[in-house]
């Protein structure tokens, strides 16, 4: 009975979704129907929001990667929130799980996995660092970079049953990375006029040392995401039976 009702509701929902998607235009974003109005002044702009991002990224933020410019600069506040959600979840995981009681002993991984993972770990960490340092130039950034770093530690956890993350350094890294992000935001309020505003020189677009605060924030995010994801994995592993 329950299943039948669920099927009926889900198929009705499917139909509603398809009908609504049918109306989504595919003409791109440059049409005049998208010209935005500024809510503070009430004036109308001569472009749409996405085309502003496409044309303005290089001059306004010094980054060549428009997605990064949006994530860190234009909508940096969202990213602060997003980092906070992850931080909240990591805190919640640590808050809710009791300290592991050891659990069942798992068998050692075989020789090839153990030695091999030791061998690749530095390269994984290096790749992660590369991804988040070059966030403003290439696809990627703090979140993918942090995830790559955490995957390196996850590999170690898989191949060495006794491998665990030391809680103190991880939580200190996590805290300092978060503090860096928030403090950079507050410095923007101090040196420029608004929260998270860029106060460093933009430099030459396309070079590593450019785009003002973007690389700094992305490095902080990389450390933060890396340490949070590995601590979540570690906590979940500890209680494993």
């Amino acid at each position, binding site marked *: 009975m329950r299943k039948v009702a669920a099927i009926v509701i889900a198929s009705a929902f499917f139909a509603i979704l398809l009908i609504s998607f049918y109306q989504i235009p595919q003409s791109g974003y440059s049409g005049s129907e*998208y010209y935005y109005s500024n809510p503070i002044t009430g004036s109308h702009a001569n472009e749409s929001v996405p085309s502003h991002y496409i044309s303005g990224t290089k001059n306004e933020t010094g980054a060549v990667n428009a997605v990064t410019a949006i994530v860190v600069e234009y909508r940096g506040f969202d990213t602060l929130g997003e980092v906070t959600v992850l931080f909240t979840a990591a805190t919640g995981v640590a808050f809710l799980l009791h300290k592991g009681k050891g659990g069942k002993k798992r068998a050692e991984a075989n020789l090839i996995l153990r030695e091999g993972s030791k061998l690749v770990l530095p390269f994984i960490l290096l790749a992660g660092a590369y991804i988040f340092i070059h966030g403003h130039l290439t696809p990627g950034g703090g979140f993918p970079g942090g995830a790559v770093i955490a995957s390196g530690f996850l590999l170690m956890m898989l191949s060495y049953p006794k491998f665990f993350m030391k809680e103190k350094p991880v939580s200190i890294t996590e805290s300092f990375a978060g503090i860096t992000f928030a403090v950079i935001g507050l410095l923007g309020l101090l040196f420029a006029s608004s929260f998270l505003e860029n106060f460093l020189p933009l430099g030459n677009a396309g070079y590593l040392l450019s785009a003002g605060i973007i690389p700094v924030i992305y490095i902080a995010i990389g450390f933060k995401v890396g340490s949070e994801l590995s601590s979540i994995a570690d906590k979940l592993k500890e209680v494993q039976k």
Partner: protein
Amino acid sequence: MVMHPVLMIAIPLLSAFIMPLIKKAHRYFAFSILLLNTALSILLFAKVYNEGALYETIAGFSPPVGIYLAVDNLSALLAFLINIFATINFLTSRQDFRFSMLYLLGVAGATGIVLTGDIFNMFVFFEITAVASYALVASKKDRKATEGAIKYMILGSVGSVFMLVGIAIIYSQLKSLNLYDIAARISSMDTKMMWLSFSFLLTGIGVEAELFPLNGWVPDAYEGAESNISSFLSFGPSKASIYAIARLLIIFSMSRTYELALYLGIVTLLVGELAAFTQKNTKRMLAYSSIGQMGLILIAFSLMDKTSYAIPAAFFIIVSHASAKSALFLLSDKDGFGDMSSKYAGLAGVLSLIGMPPLAGFWGKWYLLMGVADEKIWAVAAIIIFSAVIEAIYFARYLYKNMEGKESSRNSIPAAVMVSISIVMGILPILYNMAGGVLNA
């Protein structure tokens, strides 16, 4: 001092990041941050009240290219309420530093929801509060709390997916995420798409706002959680999200959407009050009664386009419900009002909730009835009075049961302080004017 509303969000986040480094003094630290936030919110309200709505761009890009905070009288008042109740409620916490972190994050998220002027940013803050609340509900380590948290989490996650679909549909039509830009250009949207995005957003926010078909989690989560967390849920996330629904109504501002909200409010009110009437368990009774009150607030907001009484009415019901219901939840960890302060808090709280003059709850219902009378929708007036009678009956039963009890809650003093705020706000009808000129979109 130049007032930056963003500080009210940034400082709690920063201090939550700092917290693991200073585990020892976490309680004093978190308390002083909450106190600072309350002070900031008073300054913010003074500024907004004197100078009109305040806009703060973030990252130096003018909206809608960048994000901005849009603060009007009502949102400043709500930020004040959330922070002051959070400060008082925090006095009752007896847990470790991670609890303080989650609590601060939850408060910062709720504050963010009422201050932000960007729909996706609102979604992010919703998630911050929601994730913090899931963890906080589960902080009591027994089976009931876990079940309540899981149920809350399932509905909350589905709700956030719905909200995101709504945002995606709006973005596909207008290529903008700014609330006021959307409001200005919404008429260029196809009516069908407007309805779709409105219903998706309403469903998504409605989970947190405890609206009728989406509130299955409410009794279980409130019952399972520690009593100070039930109290937090009733002044924090739920109040912030009902305000988000008010903003949503203003953006779409079609007469039919207001009508839908009115019906939804009526159903929520009736279901909540009737369910509360049949409950034996105190916390479940209070939770269902909360649902009813949320319905009442939604009714008030849904009359926003018709009468100027609507917003003051909603504001006073929010004040009364946030203070009195939070206080009653704080007292609910023991059966009985043993000492003087809990007798006072329980009695005044109940009187405010049923709407005895001159408490805040009375002004809320009074203005609401005035608004309804202006519009001559007598059926709604009858329903409001009917629900008030039911409320009076079950609260009388509740009082009778608790006044007998000898043991008393450890949280009685904070609860008394909370209720006093409702009393102060009730005898200051000046606030009517303060809450009057709000939401000037």
